């Protein structure tokens, strides 16, 4: 029966030890987790580990590092697009990555078979530019202090500070981090599924029946909701607002590339359909006297919203990757929030909950029809 296990080791050590033993015992054939790259370990990237020694002290793996070089939901989709692995694979993911993964399962881009999902109560990740040249190391002590207090370091991604879905109940195993004051000496693993229970069999720890939604967690939800409102209020809307915001958009579409939900192999906006003929350009010249080249700047953004906002999990990859520093995730999260509220839908909440645009009720949304 699913339960919680309290391990008498710090969270970092517990996580590493859990993964190491899963690999060593052969219970899993590989672990997808963050690890250091480069000869000096300056970079951090996700890696598919098969060697258990990577999870030993001083090894390359750093599963709980507060960094997201790519949304792991998208990575698991890449791994399982052509089918599930023949042997179990464990993956250590953040809550928004888990939710993206569940959306991708609904979109037939990912399989959950033979994937052991390990997540944690999340205090956010640092923006990508904080991770250049190993500068992130200095931030770590402050980060973990904030975690213990049930708070969030101001320097993490704004969408992380505004995230209210940071309790991953549908992971197989959830590591309690947020608000756990004794994180350095003790770690609670919440085993949420039978699958999870099977994998932690034999792990030494005291049983417990603690709640994932502890008091610090509930307090944090309130704090983040308040920040969320503040953040969304600052978004410029209206056509003029969008033109001002996206004035410096260079149309690189990097936001789409890193978005876990944007799975199309060939995006509509990269396809022939979006290419413009000379007649189009000349027509626009006549109508308006001038036209931005390449065109479709705001169109692309609105189109992407229309395509993916019901599934947007607010991970913040888009903002981080934008060469023009446009606060995309804030805008997209705001739009997504209203789109999702319209359908009373929450992406990644439940794998059997169908995506709103793929289903309908006979009697609904009366306000839309005139």
């Amino acid at each position, binding site marked *: 029966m699913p339960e919680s296990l309290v391990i008498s080791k710090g969270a970092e050590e517990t996580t590493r030890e859990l993964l190491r033993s899963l690999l060593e015992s052969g219970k899993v054939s590989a672990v997808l987790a963050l690890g250091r790259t480069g000869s000096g370990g300056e970079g951090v990237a996700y890696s598919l580990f098969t060697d258990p020694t990577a999870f030993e002290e001083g090894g390359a793996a750093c599963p709980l590092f507060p960094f997201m070089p790519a949304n792991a939901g998208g990575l698991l989709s890449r791994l399982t697009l052509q089918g599930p692995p023949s042997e179990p694979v464990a993956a250590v993911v953040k809550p928004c990555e888990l939710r993206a993964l569940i959306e991708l399962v609904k979109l037939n881009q990912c399989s959950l078979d033979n994937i052991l999902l390990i997540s944690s109560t999340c205090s956010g990740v640092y923006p990508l530019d904080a991770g250049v040249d190993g500068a992130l190391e200095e931030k770590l002590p402050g980060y973990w202090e904030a975690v213990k207090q049930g708070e969030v370091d101001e320097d993490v991604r704004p969408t992380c500070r505004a995230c209210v879905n940071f309790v991953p109940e549908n992971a197989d195993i959830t590591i309690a981090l947020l608000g756990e004051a004794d994180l350095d000496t003790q770690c609670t693993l919440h085993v949420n599924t039978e699958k999870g229970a099977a994998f932690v069999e034999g792990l030494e720890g005291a049983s417990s029946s603690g709640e994932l939604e502890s008091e610090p967690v509930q307090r944090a939800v309130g704090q983040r909701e308040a920040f969320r409102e503040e953040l969304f209020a600052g978004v410029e809307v209206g056509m003029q607002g969008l033109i001002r915001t996206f004035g410096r958009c260079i*149309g690189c579409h990097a936001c789409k590339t890193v978005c876990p939900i944007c799975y199309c192999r060939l995006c509509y906006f990269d396809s022939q359909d979006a*290419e413009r003929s000379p007649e189009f350009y000349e027509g626009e010249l006549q109508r308006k006297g001038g036209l931005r*080249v390449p065109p479709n700047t705001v169109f692309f953004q609105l189109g992407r919203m229309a395509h993916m906002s019901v599934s947007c999990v607010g991970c913040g990859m888009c903002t981080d990757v934008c*060469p023009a520093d446009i606060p995309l995730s804030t805008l997209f999260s705001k739009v997504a929030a209203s789109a999702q509220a319209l359908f009373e839908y929450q992406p990644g909440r439940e794998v059997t909950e169908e995506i709103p645009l793929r289903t309908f009720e006979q009697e609904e949304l009366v306000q839309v029809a005139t």
Partner: protein
Amino acid sequence: MSEKSAARSSGATLKAEGGVAAALVGWLKEALEKKVFDALLIPVEVPAGDSFAYLLLQDPAILDKASPLPPVMPVQGGKAISRLTMRGNGSKRVAAVVRPCEARAAIELSKLKQAHLDDVCLITLDCPGVLPLSDYIGDPAAGAARFAEAAAEGDRSPMRPTCQMCNHFSLLGSDLHVGTLGADGTILIVPGSSKGERVLEGMGMPVDAALDDWSARVEEAEQAQTERRRQAHADLRETVAGAENLLDVFSSCINCHNCQRVCPVCYCRQCYFESAALKLPPENYLARAGRKGALRFSPDTLLFHIGRASHMALSCVSCGACEDACPMDIPVGQVFSLMADRAQEALGYVAGRSLEDALPLVDYEMDELHQVEQPYVEIYCKQEVQDA
């Protein structure tokens, strides 16, 4: 470059007392009004004032916000020209006001059949470089001032790293080139083709000014820059060469492919490295992870960079758009510039020099590159094996 200078011996002159930009914009307005061309493609300041975007325009009023040489290059002009003309030229004659590397990219794109330049008049200017985008967006006013000061002094230190070592900043392969280097109230407009000559004719400007002074200044600056480039590339190679160094340089790469997306020469609608060819069954990834103990995921980071270089290095114009776009501050523009220079040299090619130069992989000679062939002198098994 001196061969180019010699090819053009005279140009037209334009008074520029109020500054080069103002004089040029005035000149372009006049050209539009006189229908010397039907439309202009030129960078224009965006409504929020924090960037510039290429605008195709025929309304001269819009030119008030235009800048022929903005402090930043958010979209590479060659890419803009390609998007505009990919499906043909239509009925309008367009003049594109671009930097030399953008014109060179357009020329490469034309050879790659991604742009049609027949009705496009390429107008280039002497280029002092551009600021990295991230150094401008936060405070555009300060950025503009820094750029203006540096440009006036010929100081390339605040510019993109690739601009700092650029030795092709004054191109005469375009239809019209605006020579501003060392200009003192008068700028030169040098025709590089009959298309350019017709424009000057239409503007009633005689092509009778000597180019010697300006040419000499350009040549001197180019020589200095060539040496600078040689040194910069030598230093860079030290940092990058060898498996360990190379993987260190790319250790923070997140596979966002921004570099490929903003590159003017990378035109594939669907990049090979994003196609089904590299989307493999889980067994493939797990086998590779098993062999090496781990597999960076998503995989093929190094393959993407070297592979991308193998696809586009021969047409790379070292504009540095890639490095501007990299969210992890990887010196990818410099690395590609280094690879490009050497690869182009190996195949005797200079990207963007001329529409007449055939693309190196489309062409071949029967008698060339013998150094690549592995010689076979004796029957190996009968050769006495020497101890190492």
